[in-house]
């Protein structure tokens, strides 16, 4: 049984189900109680809390609460505001389990919106995922479909580690098929093959998975079969699925919206070079945004975003002849 819902509705239904299942789960953020009266109604004002506009203490409070028996979900609104919360997330949530020799756990989820496409400029749009991937002790999730928004959030809430859960804003309003409760858990750390293919592996996550799917359609028209992999979780990173695919196709393009330098794509490319060099028939390509703040102007923003035709051109540059039918 499946129903159609937006990714945003999927997130809310995940929250609803997990808060019902486990009374240690609570939600806090700047307006979560105002905007979700249904959650307040269902779970009470204690468990759905408006906070002051103070991201550092919101994050710190979540970390302290997680260390002491709650399972907080904290909504940070937009990813750039995470810079205010970095200390608690990076220095406390990520490090204190290790530094305490395993005495404390930090089961919390940090929600933040990210992703260009709605013209609000760089202080509301910044793909910061690589910062958190680089922070030991954290997990990082970035879904691309409504079903994964739900299934991954449920797994993130149940995880005993701090999870940074990044929502691409343009995806939030897209509808998708979502299964009924029970079979909804999507495990953290498992990539998904969105489309099987033989000739090239397109690796991506979040919004640009759909860009890869569109490119794969165009490539198919040209006789090329592209495999599209959605990483879904950036940490832990499922390299096995990527490596197996590249072993078969011999070609890889990594696509993401964050900048190129030290990004997730750089890591995926490096691991493929280290672990599957012999399988590569051409150098790995990365298609990312430019290393600039996200522009507000629609025209510039589109120029910033990776486009399907860039992926198609990259692949066509390697393969001048269509593969044998």
């Amino acid at each position, binding site marked *: 049984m499946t129903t159609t819902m937006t990714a945003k509705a999927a997130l809310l239904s995940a929250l609803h189900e997990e808060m019902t299942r486990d009374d240690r789960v609570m939600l806090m953020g700047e307006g979560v109680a105002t905007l979700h009266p249904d959650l307040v109604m269902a779970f009470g004002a204690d468990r759905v809390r408006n906070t002051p506009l*103070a991201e550092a203490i919101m994050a710190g*409070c979540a970390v*302290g609460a997680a*260390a002491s028996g709650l399972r907080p979900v904290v909504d940070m609104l937009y990813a750039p505001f995470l810079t205010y919360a970095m200390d*608690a997330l990076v220095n406390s949530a990520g490090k204190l389990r290790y*530094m305490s*020799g*395993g*005495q404390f756990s930090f089961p919390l989820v940090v929600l933040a919106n990210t992703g260009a496409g709605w013209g609000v400029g760089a202080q509301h749009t910044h793909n910061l995922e690589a910062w958190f991937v680089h922070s030991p002790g954290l997990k990082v999730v970035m879904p691309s479909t409504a079903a994964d928004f739900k299934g991954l959030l449920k797994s993130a809430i149940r995880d005993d*580690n701090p999870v940074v859960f990044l929502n691409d804003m343009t995806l939030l309003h897209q509808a998708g098929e979502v299964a009924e409760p029970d079979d909804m858990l999507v495990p953290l750390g498992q990539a998904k093959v969105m489309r099987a293919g033989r000739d090239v592996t397109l690796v991506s996550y979040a919004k640009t998975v759909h860009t890869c799917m569109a490119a794969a359609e165009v490539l198919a028209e040209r006789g090329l079969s592209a495999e599209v992999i959605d990483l879904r979780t950036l940490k832990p990173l499922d390299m096995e699925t990527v490596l197996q695919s590249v072993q078969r196709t011999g070609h890889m393009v990594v696509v993401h919206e964050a900048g190129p330098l030290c990004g997730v794509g750089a890591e995926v490319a490096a691991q493929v070079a280290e672990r599957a060099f012999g399988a590569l028939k051409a150098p790995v390509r990365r298609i990312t945004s430019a290393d600039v703040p996200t522009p507000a102007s629609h025209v510039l923003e589109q120029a910033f975003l990776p486009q399907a035709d860039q992926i198609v051109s990259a692949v066509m540059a390697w393969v001048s002849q269509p593969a044998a039918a």
Partner: protein
Amino acid sequence: MNSIQALQRMLLIRAYEEKLAALQAAGPFPMSCSSQGQEASAVGVIAALSSEDRILTNHRSAAHLIARGADPARLLAEVMGKATGYCKGKSGSLHISVAELGVVLTSTIVGGELSMAPGVALARKMRREAGIVACFFGDGAACEGIFHESLNLATIWSLPVLYVCENNQWQAFVRRKETMQTEHISEWGKGYGLPCQTVDGNDAHAVHEAARAAVAQIRDTGKPFLLETLTYRQRGHFSGDDEAHISDAERAPWLKRDPIELWQSRLLAQGQLQASDLRGLKDEALARIEEALAQAQAAPYPSPEALLTDVYA
């Protein structure tokens, strides 16, 4: 607070800090930030807490940990990076937490403890668990923005936090007076709507009475309280510091008001303690620290495989 036990704890803390300082002077030995001079503040407050209460503290935490009953052998082992340390050698001197004593965090990020304290208190409150949260921090941490956010949140959410600002006159290498126009941190707290009090932090009795009243009020109302203890960091900022920035003229009046000597003379004057007992108590503290050191020295280092454990649950 049992007067003699309080003295024993203060003497044990002093013996621990002096031993560390001696080891560091002889070197090589890992660094630490000494809490020497702040014993009355630590012992006075911690004696007002119950076993179910939680504690968060900062880099100058040895006094708090020992006052709470931490085993000096395991503390020393942690400082030395040994496997028997409270955090298996993964903390070092600066971030020792001890779950079994309710010490959730020792933060060396200045203000990190202020950041987590409301959350620990929120968990207690929402889970209807008895107990309050005592959060120790310095006057330097009070200059971080998170101080404001923490006190404000704890107040509006009515969280049972005893904020204890140990105003020891220094913020690493910066004089407190260079960074604040007001004399007392407690004056800052007033604006948030929580009760605030400043006490003589070198007088164990005054600290304890104030902390007892504050804790009772927190248990009663569920609301936070800010207690400022005026005290002095008798050593430099950290063990490698040559202390050239501290003049004898500055130090002398504070040393004259050494918290342990104040306490001893009070007990002697009251007849609660004889001079001969005092010698015995001091020897006992020294002996315990020597024994602890021997244990820590004999303890094994972690195996290299431990590098990769305890990262994720």
